[in-house]
């Protein structure tokens, strides 16, 4: 070859349209990737450490602060873990309403991600404000759906960011029937909007970029797993949340403040596409019909299908919320009394971005002895690096730096990384020779 040796180095100093902060360093020598590092530099906040010594009644309010975008996931996972340890039998009302509350967060977070963070890339826009100039009706529809998700969270938590309604044993209060009736009408009105959103999302051309990966998600026999279930993987694994540590390990890479998770030593995928891959058979009939219409074939090996996967999950969440609220009754009491017990417990739910796992050791007085929290973004971090490597090779390394950077950003945004959650995210650096 007569081609000159060249080194290309791309540095993306702050990744836009992701939640929290991170950077990407990419070095290409002689047409090969020699270095690719996703650096999460969200400062560590040491949540696990300052939970120590705190009373169980404070935990839902404290863990919410790990993430402003998915506080419900943190609250419900912690409550699930502690209620299991304390032997609490939740009222069926509280079980159902935890799912409705969680559906609100999926709707809010997914719609925010699709419209404000991910979609602008596919229309050549820098942000949602620009996108709103060329697709005003679609962006406004998205903002309305996002607002409805917030309203569902608000219904049980009085506000959607750091809601205040969850208590160990149920909820602090039950919404009145009149508020539920009003919201049911809004949910019904939103169903055709969410169906139109799926059709729009499915019409957006995305790269063909198939890769081999393992999907991991909760599975439940009764429904599309959100707030409960066992941990399942696409290679056939099916375990209880307690056995997480036997199969998954967190490792620290010095270039990042987020820990990397490995499944049997391998990177793996959590989140909407992993869930659809594993659980599409549990979708309600109408959501399944829209899935079929979208043309998305499952299981999918193309992470660019994440956008339409989120749209499908919005419709699912609207259906589930409506189904459960159609049967709404005001309970005798929104919570049951709790007596703390000493011991070790785990909780696991599907945050909007994927599997969220908590482990608590509690003392007899109901205070935390130690805590461990494994958020979805740190689980996806290894997969994102692997994806970037494969996706860039598929895309072609000869593209100009700006095109490479945009492609990398699109790949990363497929995962909707929440860097604040990772506590322990993107700037991009490309070097070539």
């Amino acid at each position: 070859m007569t081609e000159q040796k060249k080194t290309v180095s791309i540095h993306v100093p702050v990744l836009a349209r992701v939640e929290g902060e991170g950077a990407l360093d990419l070095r290409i020598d002689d047409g090969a990737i020699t270095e690719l590092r996703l650096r999460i530099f969200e400062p560590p906040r040491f949540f696990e450490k300052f939970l120590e010594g705190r009373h169980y009644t404070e935990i839902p309010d404290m863990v919410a602060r790990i993430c402003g975008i998915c506080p419900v996931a943190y609250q419900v996972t912690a409550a699930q873990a502690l209620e299991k340890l304390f032997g609490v039998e939740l009222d069926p009302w509280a079980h159902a309403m935890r799912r409705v509350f969680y559906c609100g967060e999926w709707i809010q977070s997914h719609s925010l991600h699709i419209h404000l963070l991910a979609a602008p890339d596919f229309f050549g826009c820098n942000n949602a404000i620009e996108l709103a100039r060329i697709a005003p009706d679609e962006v406004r529809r998205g903002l309305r759906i996002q607002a409805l998700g917030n309203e569902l969270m608000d219904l049980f938590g009085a506000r959607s960011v750091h809601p205040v309604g969850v208590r160990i044993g149920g909820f602090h209060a039950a919404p009145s029937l009149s508020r539920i009736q009003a919201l049911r009408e809004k949910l019904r009105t939103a169903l055709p909007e969410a169906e139109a959103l799926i059709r729009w999302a499915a019409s957006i051309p995305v790269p063909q970029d198939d890769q081999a990966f393992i999907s991991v998600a909760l599975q439940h026999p009764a429904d599309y797993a959100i707030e409960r279930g066992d941990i399942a993987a696409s290679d056939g694994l099916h375990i209880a949340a307690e056995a997480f540590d036997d199969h998954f390990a967190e490792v620290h890479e010095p270039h990042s403040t987020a820990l990397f998770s490995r499944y049997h030593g391998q990177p793996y995928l959590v989140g909407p596409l992993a869930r659809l891959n594993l659980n599409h058979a549990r979708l309600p009939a109408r959501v399944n019909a829209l899935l079929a219409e979208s043309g998305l074939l499952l299981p999918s090996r193309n992470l660019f299908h994440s956008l339409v996967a989120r749209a499908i999950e919005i419709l699912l969440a609207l259906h589930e919320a409506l189904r459960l609220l159609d049967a709404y009754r005001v309970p005798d009491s929104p919570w049951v009394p709790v007596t703390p017990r000493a011991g070790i417990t785990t909780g696991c739910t599907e945050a909007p971005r994927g599997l969220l796992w908590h482990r608590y050791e509690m003392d007899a007085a109901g205070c935390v002895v130690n805590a461990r929290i494994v958020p979805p973004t740190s689980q996806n971090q290894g997969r994102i690096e692997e994806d970037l490597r494969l996706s860039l090779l598929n895309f072609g390394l000869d593209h100009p730096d700006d095109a490479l950077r945009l492609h990398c950003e699109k790949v990363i945004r497929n995962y909707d990384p929440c860097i604040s959650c990772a506590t322990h995210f993107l700037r991009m650096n490309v070097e070539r020779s």
Partner: protein
Amino acid sequence: MNTSTAHPIKPRVAVHKFSSCDGCQLAILNLGEDLLKLAERVELVHFAEAGPLDPDTDVDVAFVEGSVSTPEDIERIQHIRAHSKLLIAIGACATAGGIQGLRNGVFDAQWVTQIYSHPEAIASLERSTPIAGHVKVDFELWGCPVSGPQMLAVVNSLLLGVAPHDNADKVCTECKRQGYPCIMVTRGIACMGPVTRAGCGALCPSLGRDCYGCYGPAENANTDALAAQFARQGLTPQAIVQRFQSINSQAPVFLAAADKIRMNGHD
């Protein structure tokens, strides 16, 4: 005097993030239709989570979320201050160091080694501190999180050319106006409302639960009286300290209240 509200020149606005959960930025991203209106009235120069990236140009107003918690943060906030006419700190992290301020005074280098296998790669200050601890702050908006209406009120004040105002009275005043029965009096629940800054609209009492102080200390907060009340309700000194040491642990009034109980032991 210019009383025009046509705003031929849009004010240049930046939103910066430091150590935080991103929740206060959601006060903007959750505005819905108002978000599109806001974008017509101001020029969003830098707002990484929403897309615009330009942290280095001069702006009229910089909103800052998050606390200062790494050596790099200190340089960054000074840079932002030097390039902003007005700097507004939003949320508990920016005004009081946030929940991560709970590490202050108890931080142990072992924490890093217990969580990270390459502790040398983790740059973290021993203390998480509010923005005003490092640079001049023109206005503080308290709350964990701040709300959309609070943010819009500040932006509208600035667009009208008047100083922003924030309610520093107590949650109790909001609770009474809404007509909620006092949960401390009627149900004996230890509530932080009497010393906590208004602004949320008494959300916790609306659900029949205790306020936990997420908006920080109100002005003229009588923490001694409240601590004594908590003791009469049977809270242990340790439990009372934890009431003051939560979301806004480093706010001076709450920190002093906790220190006093610690020193008095079993009083």
